[in-house]
């Protein structure tokens, strides 16, 4: 899911960097103290997630966890994802430093969109079954949309969209399912154990 250094054209790097900067600024507005540790922990989870390798035929894919971050952090997911991607690029050379904007956008925007669509499940009034379903959809669709966005980015860079997107989306299908369940169970668990974490934002 990470696009490496040196693949994308400068215009794409610049454009996505600007968009990401905007979203990150939005994500940092009026942060409250109690949100910061959660952002840190989930950012750490995202950081480590790329080490979890999921077998997928001829290519290699890894967990993304953007759906989880979107559901639990709302728009704070953007800065958390940015930090995690930055450290991944620095420490393991996953993705790239110049492509940070593109990668953050590709992974953060789907998380944000799914939060907007499914974030109602965080409310205390929402029942467990509804929350579990919403959580699954959030995890599943975030990875799916990320795959489509990576395909779009590569298409803007010159590759044919359909084959590029097909590879990414199909290869990540097991990841989508795994993360659906993961996000779903996390959401249900946190609603039961610490619903205050989901208030506001």
């Amino acid at each position, binding site marked *: 899911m990470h696009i*490496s*250094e040196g693949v994308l054209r400068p215009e794409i790097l610049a454009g996505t960097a600007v968009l990401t900067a905007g979203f990150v600024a939005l994500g940092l507005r009026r942060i409250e103290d109690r949100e910061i540790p959660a952002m840190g922990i989930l950012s*750490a989870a995202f950081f480590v997630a790329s080490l979890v390798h999921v077998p997928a035929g001829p290519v290699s894919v890894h967990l993304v966890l953007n759906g989880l971050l979107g559901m639990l952090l709302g728009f704070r997911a953007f800065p958390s994802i940015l930090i995690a991607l930055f450290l991944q690029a620095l420490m*393991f050379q996953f993705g790239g430093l110049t492509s940070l904007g593109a990668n953050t956008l590709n992974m953060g925007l789907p998380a944000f969109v799914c939060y907007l669509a499914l974030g109602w499940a965080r409310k205390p009034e929402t029942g467990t079954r509804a929350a579990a379903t919403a959580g699954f959809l959030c995890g599943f669709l975030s990875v799916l949309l990320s795959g489509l966005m990576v395909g779009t980015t590569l298409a803007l860079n010159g590759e044919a969209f359909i084959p*590029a997107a097909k590879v*990414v989306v199909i290869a990540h299908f097991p990841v989508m399912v795994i993360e659906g369940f993961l996000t779903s169970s996390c959401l249900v*668990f946190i609603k039961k*154990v610490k619903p205050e974490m989901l208030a506001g934002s």
Partner: protein
Amino acid sequence: MTSLISRKMFVCVPVLALVLLLAPVRVMAHKVMVFGYVEDGKVKTISKFNGGKKVQGGKIRVFDEDGRELLQGVTDENGEFAFDIPSKKGLKIELEAAMGHKNVSLIPADQLVVAGASPVGESRSESGVEATPEFPPVEPAAEQNPSDSDIRSPGDLEVAVEAVLDRKVMPVLQMMAEKEDKPRVADILGGLGYIVGLVGIALYMKSRKEG
């Protein structure tokens, strides 16, 4: 404040543990590698995803030292692509695999001059670009078996010695290359440490603003 953090730990540590348990034992970095070497008068390339999967249908482009594109090719189902030596100057071999993965392998000019019969040259990786060479197992050409060949001249001796050296050194280089690929525990802990540090700094700065 402490109960707030430890409660979140209680939630998220089992989550993280669950996530890690789902992984197969080998945990991989998410990179692609290409390795180019000279054998039998041709340049051979092997392309792999980190973790061993061969890159099939990956696009290979070969440039000379001045950056001019010399030729293009596609890796076969073994991840290999071979071509005749196109230039006596140094070569840059670039691999583009699916999903936006890219990597580079350099072959310096002195490896392109074939000394005696089929030496196995090694390619240097350029620092700053994520090139981590993966080395193939060495198969010395038949006539280089030192016990069989007739050593008639210093040239023959050199060829024989080179073959034996390559055989001995290859596994060590292979081990070194593989060590570089895996994300080191130190790097993982380093990244996590940075995150913890950022959380601390953010909280401190917020408390100063309010205090």
